[in-house]
């Protein structure tokens, strides 16, 4: 007798019959090796019936065994998930407290930052209304990037100014730092200075410290009270008197905004923290 109400399309009838016959044989053999199975089961079921049933009124979900879980197992899962959630929350909280300062301290207007510093592909481009304060070397070097600037950052020690204006604050004993332009390079040690690419020339002004401006045609040393002008790659840089040696207002504006943004962030984060004793 075919016990199956359904058939598998394309199944070899001999294969099907042989397997059914095989199963019959094995079942008989196995049942023959388990004499009194029904009696033993009767005894065990009778024993199970004697056990008190679960108290009424308690809702017990009854599911097939593959989905069923021991109550202890379920509790332990819930505890494990809760512990994981607490860990994630704690990690997020601590990360917020201990995370290093964002190297981009401030940005306004249109600022496009692409690439990354580690690979030497970092590029910062500001539009006509943009501005940005970016730190390098853990804050020892601060770049103030004016609007309309295109700056490539090759490393923490060298940037390439392709367009616009850049002021740099290099803290004393910070090591060498270089601004590369098409007209020449500016090497500094512990100073505040600016490089402005204006038309077909580069103007370098300095507030304090000393910088060396050089290109293939020559080099000059620049100190406060003078500015350097580089008109072309083949023209040696020249220095000339500079009445305004102060850092321009736009740099201070950016600095103030960056500090204000940092303060806002601090207050926001501090107000999120649970207060104790208040």
């Amino acid at each position, binding site marked *: 007798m075919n016990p199956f109400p359904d058939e*598998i399309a394309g199944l070899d009838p001999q*294969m099907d019959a042989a*397997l059914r016959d095989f199963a019959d044989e*094995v*079942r008989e053999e*196995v049942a023959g090796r388990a004499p009194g199975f029904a009696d*033993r089961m009767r005894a065990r079921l009778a024993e199970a019936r004697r056990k008190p049933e679960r108290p009424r009124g308690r809702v017990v979900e009854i599911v097939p065994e593959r989905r069923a879980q021991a109550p202890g197992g379920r509790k332990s899962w819930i505890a494990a998930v809760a512990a994981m959630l607490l860990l994630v929350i704690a990690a997020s909280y601590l990360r917020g407290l201990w995370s290093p300062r964002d190297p981009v301290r401030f940005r306004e207007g249109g600022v496009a930052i692409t690439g990354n510093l580690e690979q030497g592909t970092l590029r910062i481009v500001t539009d006509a209304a943009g501005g940005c304060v970016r730190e390098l070397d853990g804050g020892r070097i601060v770049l103030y990037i004016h609007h309309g600037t295109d700056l490539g950052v090759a490393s923490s020690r060298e940037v390439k100014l392709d367009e616009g204006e850049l002021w740099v604050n290099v803290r004393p004993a910070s090591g060498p730092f270089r601004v590369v332009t098409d007209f020449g390079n500016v090497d500094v040690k512990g100073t505040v200075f600016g490089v402005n690419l204006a038309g077909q020339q580069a103007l370098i002004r300095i507030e304090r410290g000393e910088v060396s401006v050089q290109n293939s045609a020559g080099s000059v040393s620049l100190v406060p009270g003078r500015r350097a002008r580089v008109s072309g790659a083949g023209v040696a840089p020249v220095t000339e008197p500079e009445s305004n040696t102060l850092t321009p207002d736009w740099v201070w504006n950016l600095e103030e905004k960056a500090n204000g943004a940092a303060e806002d962030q601090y207050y926001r984060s501090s107000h999120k923290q649970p207060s104790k004793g208040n």
Partner: protein
Amino acid sequence: MVVVEAFHRRLLGYLYIQTGSHDLADDLAQEVFLAAYEQRKAIRSEKALKSWLFTVACRKASRSQPRTRTQPLPEPGAADDPSSPEVISPWSGMQREKAIEFMEGALRTLPAEDRELVTLRYFGELSIKELSETLQMPMGTVGVKLGRALEKMKKHLLARGVTFGDLLP
């Protein structure tokens, strides 16, 4: 007890093929029936009972086997060693014991998932719909997988010069 009478042979046969041990099959079958007794209020009908019993039996059998699901059971006897297949040709006068040994050998070479499907079908006498419920896979998938598993068995037997027809009494 009606349930035990109705299903114990099928369960014992299925569990024996899955575990390879008569004692273990006996123990697991008892556990399955006890579990069914404990969950009796949740089992809605006789049809549901059949799928339920074999679902539980599947789980108990797989838990008793530490192997991965895709690893076939070792074949008993050197005759089933793939590196030195015993080719018997022409085939004649095969004894029943030998036929069962060949079939069992072919079944044991199947990956665990295929073997589970074939044994549920033939030892548990589950329909395609019941297989679908028990294994939680679409009915079409059950048919395709079962057909492929049987083809594997057929190839295994043919490599030894045996056809399914030879194994019929």
